[in-house]
């Protein structure tokens, strides 16, 4: 993706890059009745997180896990990067207690777009080995699930689609007629699947998976645009009228930031009691909000709504290509689902690359 690299691309180190290793690949067939065994095996020594209703939650009872065939509205990002996280505690005498404590976890039911988004967070937070993200990522087993339907807002086919190829996970499940195709993508995943003594999958099952992916991808209302065209159109499109149009509609509420699986900005705050004991916490922040770029003397470096609306989109389709060689959008469509102004990235991409807008 995005081979169009400017010459002055800053250096970056990447964690988990090329993590996937064919040596860890094993394929089995998991009957529907066996799913419970797999979940018990996974949850045994780990806290399990899976979609319940519209959101990933900590699972107490396996029956509460959602049976939907498509992504949840609130993805698994907060398992790795919580919306509110203690960094450390302190007391009035200045003593500090580290809040970095690893917990063994597993996520079940992450979709291709969710896991692709984790790959992006790996790059952002991997640049400096961000301790909380890294600790969570290293201690969390990822179980992916192929979608069996799409939502009207989905356009992941632009960014790799439903395929798990190149994604970094432990186990990948694909619902088929007679159960699940279960594939391992890590040593731990391979060990877990092997322990269940399942029958091996064959070519037929792989073909069924391909067909499922094809069917769901074709159900999406999106015709992929060449990556290079998106990149060059963004580069040359700073003055395009589309920015003014979306800025006039945008409420600058930041919901699209909060819901996005690759948005990673945060604020750091101190919270104290009356005696001066307290904690330093990290909370999600949003580049759409007015005070995001405010500094001393009331300078606001992105004070105009236009600048902020444009920035969010550039930070998905342009800057990450310069820095990491890939788009930071997965096409999950969540930002459209939550937007009261119906701002649709597909419209913007079509307009800026010279096509007509969605639905026109």
């Amino acid at each position, binding site marked *: 993706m995005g081979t169009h690299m400017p010459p002055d691309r800053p250096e970056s180190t990447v964690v988990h890059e090329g993590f996937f290793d064919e040596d860890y690949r094993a394929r089995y067939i998991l009957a529907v009745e066996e799913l419970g065994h797999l979940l018990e095996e996974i949850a045994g020594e780990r806290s399990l997180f899976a979609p319940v209703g519209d959101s990933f939650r900590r699972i107490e009872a396996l029956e509460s896990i959602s049976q939907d065939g498509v992504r949840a509205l609130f993805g698994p990002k907060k398992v790795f990067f919580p919306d509110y996280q203690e960094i450390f505690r302190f007391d009035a005498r200045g003593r500090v207690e580290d809040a970095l404590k690893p917990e063994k976890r597993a996520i079940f039911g992450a979709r291709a777009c969710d896991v692709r988004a984790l790959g992006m967070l790996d790059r952002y937070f991997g640049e400096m080995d961000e301790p909380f993200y890294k600790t969570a990522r290293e201690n969390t087993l990822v179980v992916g699930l192929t979608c069996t339907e799409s939502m009207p807002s989905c356009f992941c086919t632009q960014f790799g689609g439903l395929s798990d190829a190149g994604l970094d996970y432990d186990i990948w499940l694909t619902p088929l007629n007679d159960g699940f195709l279960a594939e391992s993508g890590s040593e731990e995943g391979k060990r877990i699947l092997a322990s269940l003594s399942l029958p091996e999958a064959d070519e037929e099952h792989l073909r069924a998976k391909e067909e499922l992916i094809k069917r769901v991808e074709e159900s999406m209302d999106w015709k992929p645009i060449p990556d290079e065209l998106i990149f060059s159109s963004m580069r040359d499109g700073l003055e395009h009228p589309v920015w003014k149009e979306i800025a006039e509609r945008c409420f600058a509420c930041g919901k699209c930031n909060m819901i996005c699986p690759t948005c990673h900005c945060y604020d750091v705050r*101190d919270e104290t009691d009356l005696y001066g004991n307290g904690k330093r916490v990290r909370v999600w922040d949003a580049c759409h909000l007015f005070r995001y770029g405010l500094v001393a003397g009331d300078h606001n470096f992105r004070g105009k709504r236009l600048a902020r609306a444009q920035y969010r989109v550039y930070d998905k389709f342009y800057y990450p290509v310069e820095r990491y060689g890939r788009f930071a959008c997965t096409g999950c469509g969540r930002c459209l689902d939550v937007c009261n102004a119906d701002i649709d990235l597909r419209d913007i991409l079509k307009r800026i690359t010279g096509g007509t807008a969605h639905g026109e």
Partner: protein
Amino acid sequence: MGNSYIPSSVRLERIEEETDDTRTFFFDRKIDSRPGQFLEVSVLGYGEAPISINSSADENLRLTIRSVGNVTGAVHRMKPGDEMGIRGPFGRGWPLDEMEGKNLLIVAGGIGLAPLRAAILDIIRSRERYGNVALFYGARSPELIIHKKELGEWAKEMDVKVTVDVCDEYRKDICSAWKGDVGVVTTLFDKYRIPEDSTAFVCGPPVMMKFATKELLKRGFTMDRIYVSLERHMKCGMGMCGHCQIGGRYVCKDGPVFSVAEFVKWAEKPEEMEGVL
């Protein structure tokens, strides 16, 4: 794995008044830093603020801080003997290594002299490694000049010119004693000789950096010979929280010092350069 958000502690030894709202704080130990880098200063219960390292690496840590809010206010309330937290040093400072044998023009505005002090000291310490060096410094009025005593010492090693924006009859009390130039810092570009073929290091308020850059470009400076130090809202200092980002670069990690030649390629230009690029 370590928690890189936990600050380490330094003890305050001495405080010096610079202006009404700005003081220099002297601490009990050295920091291995390069000129132009900054620290995240942490006061438990108040939070953190990015502050440039005012000291060179061979003296104990000094920070010159203007009291504007929460954290900076809390630091101003500290007394000698008190402890404070720091994280860092962070960022890419002034490109002194590339300046060897070259002429230099340092342009500072107001408290913007503080992040340049370490560079000035390094230049003076190895004075023979550099060509002609000039420091043009502007403050709004005489009482807002920082590092007053040192400016005189530096003048022995380089061409130091100091100007104030306004000084007229309405401010007789202060201005009768002012013997220096009057006018914004860019007026010095015409009054005095800019070292030939020099590279400029610019630090000050956003408007000042904008006009200095504009005037330097007019006088034949190429973009790759103008460096500015940007200020942005910063929450982590490590290229993680996203706050300082501009044009896809992290000011905290990839900067804060950038050459103008770098900006022109970005899809979002620093606001300081509005009307310049």
